[in-house]
């Protein structure tokens, strides 16, 4: 019981965060606009969840300029990948136990 819950990560409780991690897990890195298109969420909503995931160390942020326009690229960190994988495993275990 304890083991399942250790892997059940509180940081992924929100659907949007789960979504961000899912998209970055297969694409490695993506810019803000592509993420917004994939997840169909508002700017503010996405930004706050991205910040939370960055604070947790699950994604890294790289800011640059493309044609003088600011471009922010989000990349999943190794720690983020591991936590996400464990979280999915925990979800599957919970479902299989029903």
């Amino acid at each position, binding site marked *: 019981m304890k083991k399942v819950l250790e892997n059940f990560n509180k940081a992924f409780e929100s*659907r949007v965060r*789960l979504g961000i991690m*899912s*998209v970055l897990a*297969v*694409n490695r890195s993506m810019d803000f606009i*592509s993420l917004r298109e*994939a997840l169909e969420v508002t700017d503010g909503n996405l930004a706050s969840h991205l910040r939370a995931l960055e604070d947790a160390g699950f994604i890294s942020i790289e800011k640059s300029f493309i044609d003088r326009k600011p471009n922010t690229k989000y990349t999943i960190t190794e720690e983020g990948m591991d936590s996400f994988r464990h979280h*999915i495993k925990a979800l599957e275990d*919970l479902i299989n136990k029903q």
Partner: protein
Amino acid sequence: MCYKVLYIIVMNQPDQHLEDIKVIKKLMEESSRFLSLSGISGIIAGLLAIAGAVAAKLIITGSSPAEDWYAVPFAGDPANNRTVFLLLADMAVVLVLSFGAAVLFSSRKARKSGRNAWTPITRRMLASLFIPLVTGGLFILLTLSRVPANVTVASTLIFYGLAVISAGKFTLGEIHWLGVLEVATGLICLMLPQWSILIWAVGFGAIHIVYGLFMHLRYKG
């Protein structure tokens, strides 16, 4: 104690966890692959290619002896200029109409399933498709008057196959094998120069129709 409370909360939301897994799976697929590729457009491309091959055969038999039925005249001979021009126009029409059908039916399929057809993945898929395809087109035009005609015909199949393999990384998995089949057909075309047009009709026609039918039945659209 704390764990016990959390355990009760977590265990009492089975539907939510199942839903979470579904959302994860859907987002992983949709953000990494173009899922709206239409099978019908494959069938149409195949039919157009067969019509194009019949037209090519008529163009050739109109200008050279009947025993050369399936072989294409050599473009280096100025006497063949008109025939070669007509054959290239024929191929271009087939290509443009097939691509148009793919765009039309795929966006229709996307609309029906409530997906957005124009995403970053669509753009990456098209870039991977067009880089080998445009390279092939230029290669064919630049070597046209210097290589045997069946090499040109084989090149269309080989470069198209490579373009499909490259784009296949961003769309439904089976597309990869369509590309492999097209490349193989192109290589066979190199070995059997006297059957160029027939092999071209098999590669772009029959294989597309079979694939389109398979994809249509498997992915419903």
